[in-house]
């Protein structure tokens, strides 16, 4: 059975992962290894007056004062007015969020390291905390960074002709939307182990990351070492979602201590550290005015987006990627012409904002999709009709939207039709009316989005980032026994790349993926890659493996043609052999000839051999756009505020599907996280900036019982700009659930005159609204 592109094969890595044979950072055993624990800031904002080390542990505790040869993490941006922040890996001068690292303590075991950490005395002078981004945005006296004149990392504006839309509008919809701060919650937390390898004269850092090569670059920059002196290895990584896509301060301090003490040092993030110091994503606020005509056609959108960025700018994605993406992606799949948008990236006393699966789009999709439904209600039409009519029509493709996004291919309205069919929209209104007569509140909601994926040099350049991805490289070679080795500097932390990259090689070389070994994550053995993020793995690393495999296949054919005494063009590679009609030679014999019996090859043989490294990027840099429509039906219990998802369907198009099985897994996983955003997950702070959700009893993550049986449907509109027409898909399914579910909730609660504008739509939030409406007899709109 062919195992190339399109094969629904099981994941190669699962045997290891499911049998407990994976090796994560915390599984590594090493002689003399000590563990680290951090002293973290107990307050949100304050001046460090003194840090006192107990005398008996003087040599086991390190503070910023010890690390005077280390530079602060600083992510520069080329965007005008952007302010960079100095993010010290151990706090210096001030603490700016609860959980910020102040000192690192080492001991033979983690428990002993925590004992030592408890003995460190902190003398902190508290300052008033900045917890509400809307307040911090205009505060010029209380400053997160005292040398700034305000709390803005960046503000941007996009000025379209909104006056024209305003003048023509029959309907004006004005809304405010909130999305909660979240944690990304990978199953494996962050972890780092560093030691000095005397033989290689190298700092070796095992770290749970999505971007091993970038971490190497970052570590050498801020530790002021040559990159040749740093080797980063990402072993098995148990989920990333963006959390492991930045240089963490702990990676620097652990590395520094290992180098300083000459002892292997490991830090393993525990769940409490994650829930406190990793509360770093998703929190947006929108003020949105939509102008529409009397049938609901959008004439213009006027938006103001505030992102609660937290205390520091992360490296390399800066504090402003989120707002830049939000402003650029708010129009989403819709075809309106007038757009005005202001964005504010606001510094607050919270952990530094980090891009999470979907990056900004779960927020903008939520805001746009609720607005579409609000417009539909205002003009008295079905939301799916209004949605369909506002989407970019298939005939207009390729389409450049109001913010300059180049939509390559797709039939967005058809995705709405397909989702409507799958969820049996016909007949739903009758069912809903009948349920209501029995006192039951059911509703239906839709949510459509585009997923910009594998965007490249120009897009990242426009976001002002200090590092910009270019050509992705991959190495493919044939071993002397005829099996294949693939090496990629990208990394797999659950996406199944060990399987899908093997499929790319299998496609060209005709070798079963069981005989293809994919190596990733080690900067010592793989070509440079900026890593796994932005739904780029399959397009970029997949494309590079495909290209290298194609080149290798041509070389194999030349050798085979000589051995079979025919022309290379007559050779076909399949089943591990090179065929010329009925005669064949195995890849093993071809490899053997090259490596061990060169006497069988002609003198003018291609000396480049059976090992190929190639670089690849798509023919456009602006990204290729996957898209989907999600639809949900829910029942809301008006007595408790509890929402139950009844049906959930996803109709998506990501171009060529390399492995449909893995694709479905991505959809389930992404939608599960999106449901967390929609209904459950929320970091709550008190007025002092203390997180109240520091355990999993307080921070609620959906489990299997909370998830519906997802129904999936697909179409395949190939991109003309990538190898094999592939588009990225890793993030997509996390984007739409808030829009679909809250639209369904609002549809269900329409008879009660209630609209929810905030996620998560917790029972408490929904019930408070119901009770306040019941008490006042009016909507608290």
């Amino acid at each position, binding site marked *: 059975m062919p195992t190339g592109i399109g094969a629904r094969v099981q994941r190669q890595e699962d045997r290891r992962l499911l049998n407990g044979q994976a090796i994560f950072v915390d599984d590594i055993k090493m002689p003399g290894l000590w563990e680290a624990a951090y002293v973290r800031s107990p307050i949100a904002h304050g001046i460090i007056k003194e840090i006192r080390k107990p005398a008996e542990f003087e040599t086991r505790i390190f503070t910023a004062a010890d690390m005077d040869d280390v530079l602060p993490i600083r992510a520069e941006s080329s965007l005008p007015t952007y302010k960079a922040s100095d993010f010290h890996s151990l706090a210096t001068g001030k603490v700016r969020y609860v959980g910020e690292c102040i000192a690192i303590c080492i001991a033979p075991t983690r428990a002993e390291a925590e004992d030592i950490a408890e003995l460190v005395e902190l003398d902190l002078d508290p300052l008033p905390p900045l917890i509400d981004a809307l307040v911090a945005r205009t505060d010029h006296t209380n400053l997160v960074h005292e040398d700034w004149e305000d709390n803005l990392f960046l503000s941007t504006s996009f000025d379209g002709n909104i006056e024209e839309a305003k003048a023509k509008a029959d309907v004006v919809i004005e809304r405010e939307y909130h999305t909660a701060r979240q944690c990304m919650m990978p199953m494996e937390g962050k972890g780092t182990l560093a030691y000095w390898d005397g033989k290689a004269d190298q700092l070796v850092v095992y770290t749970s990351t999505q971007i091993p090569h970038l971490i190497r670059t970052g570590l050498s920059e801020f530790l002021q070492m040559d990159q040749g002196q740093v080797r980063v290895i990402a072993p098995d990584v148990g989920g990333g979602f963006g959390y492991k896509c930045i240089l963490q301060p702990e990676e620097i301090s652990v590395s520094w201590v290992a180098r300083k003490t000459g002892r292997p040092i490991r830090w393993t993030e525990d769940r409490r550290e994650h829930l406190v110091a990793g509360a770093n994503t998703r929190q947006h606020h929108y003020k949105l005015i939509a102008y529409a005509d009397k049938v609901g056609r959008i004439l213009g959108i006027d938006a103001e987006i505030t992102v609660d960025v937290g205390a520091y700018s992360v490296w390399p994605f800066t504090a402003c990627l989120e707002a830049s993406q939000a402003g650029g992606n708010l129009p989403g799949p819709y075809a309106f012409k007038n757009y005005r948008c202001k964005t504010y990236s606001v510094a607050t006393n919270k952990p530094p904002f980090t891009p999470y699966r979907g990056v900004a789009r779960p927020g903008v999709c939520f805001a746009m999709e609720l607005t579409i439904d609000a417009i539909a209600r205002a003009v008295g039409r079905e939301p799916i009709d209004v949605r369909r009519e506002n989407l970019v029509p298939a005939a207009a493709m390729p389409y450049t939207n109001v913010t300059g996004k180049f939509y390559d291919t797709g039939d967005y309205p058809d995705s709405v039709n397909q989702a409507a069919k799958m969820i049996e929209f016909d007949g739903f209104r009758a069912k809903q009316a009948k349920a209501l007569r029995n006192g039951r509140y059911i509703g239906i909601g839709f949510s459509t989005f585009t997923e910009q994926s594998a965007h490249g040099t120009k897009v990242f350049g426009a976001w002002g980032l200090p590092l910009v991805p270019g050509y992705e490289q991959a190495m493919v070679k044939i071993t002397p026994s005829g099996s294949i080795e693939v090496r990629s500097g990208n990394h797999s932390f659950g996406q199944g790349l060990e399987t899908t990259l093997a499929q790319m090689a299998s496609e060209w070389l005709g070798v079963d993926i069981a005989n293809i070994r994919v190596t990733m994550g080690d900067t010592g053995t793989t070509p440079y890659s900026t890593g796994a993020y932005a739904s780029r793995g399959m397009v970029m690393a997949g494309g590079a493996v495909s290209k290298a495999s194609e080149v290798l296949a041509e070389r194999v054919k030349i050798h085979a043609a000589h051995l079979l005494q025919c022309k290379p063009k007559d050779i076909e590679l399949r089943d591990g052999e090179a065929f010329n009609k009925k005669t064949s030679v195995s890849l093993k014999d071809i490899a053997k000839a090259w490596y061990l019996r060169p006497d069988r090859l002609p003198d003018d043989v291609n000396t480049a051999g059976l090992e190929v490294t190639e670089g690849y990027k798509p023919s456009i840099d602006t990204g290729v756009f996957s898209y989907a429509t999600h639809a949900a039906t829910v029942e809301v219990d008006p*007595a*408790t505020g509890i929402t139950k998802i009844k049906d959930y369907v996803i109709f998506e198009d990501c171009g060529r599907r390399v492995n449909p099985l893995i694709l479905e897994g991505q959809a389930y996983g992404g939608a599960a996280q999106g449901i967390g955003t929609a209904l459950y997950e929320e970091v709550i702070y008190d007025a002092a900036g203390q997180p109240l959700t520091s355990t999993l009893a307080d921070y609620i993550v959906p489990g299997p019982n909370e998830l519906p049986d997802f129904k999936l449907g697909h179409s395949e509109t190939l991109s003309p700009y990538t190898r094999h027409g592939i588009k990225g898909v890793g993030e997509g399914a996390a984007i739409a659930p808030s829009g679909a579910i809250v639209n369904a909730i609002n549809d269900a609660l329409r008879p009660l005159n209630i609209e929810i504008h905030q996620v998560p739509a917790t*029972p408490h939030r929904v*019930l*408070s609204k119901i009770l306040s409406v019941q008490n006042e007899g009016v909507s608290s709109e």
Partner: protein
Amino acid sequence: MKPVSFEYNTPASLSLTTDLLVRTKKDAKLISGGQSLGPMLNLRLARPELLIDISKLSELKEIGEDKSKVIIGASITHSTIEDGGVVEPISGMLRYVASRIAYRAVRNKGTIGGSLAHADPAADWVTTMMALSAVIKTRTSDGIIRKIPMHDFMLGAYRTALKHDEIISSIEIPKYSKKACWGYHKICRKVGEFANAIGAIVVDPVQKYCIIACGAVGGAPLILQDLSESVARSAAVPDILEIVLALETSEQQFDAVKMQQLAVSVQRAIEKAVCK
């Protein structure tokens, strides 16, 4: 998140355990399933110097019954109860409640005695035992055996009538008649989480017994006495307002959302019981 250093001891009998509790100068804590204490140790919220493991004591594993009551040893696990390993004092109630405590992995380790001694206001057993008028049987170091009615056992959040050297040995639950029925409803953010609200009712027309208990109220579960009597009389499901009024007579203050959730959990528990 690792515990502070502690000593660990496994006495061979209940009397040796109570002796040790009296003798030791250390700050000691009993541990059985460890499903509540374990996380508190790891979070360093509990910092005992000595842990005394009583999970292996056969004296705490009694399962029995006589004509009037069911006896469940303190270290019987939730999963044993879920799997029908104890006699039901009233058809199916213990199994139903046990099967909805946290997750199976927790139920495999967690014990009924441990849950009662821990006295988390949102735990299932404290409210259930209140509705069933269970009696908590204990033993102290000088061999004194006490039988503490559940109504007097839980004093408040994480507070019980247990003395320093006193251990729960078993729980005795009165048997109810074949005509008795029960209802139990809890409102949780997700399956397996601690409840936001718990309603429980046990009604036995033969024994003229009716108790409605409301849990997850921040302290010991509330017994809604007047409401119990009126439901026993009318066999009708009260409306929300009536339940709210009953809850308002307690000393605790609830915000509007919490009050509504408590009232709904009580109402739905009664619906399940009365409709049988």
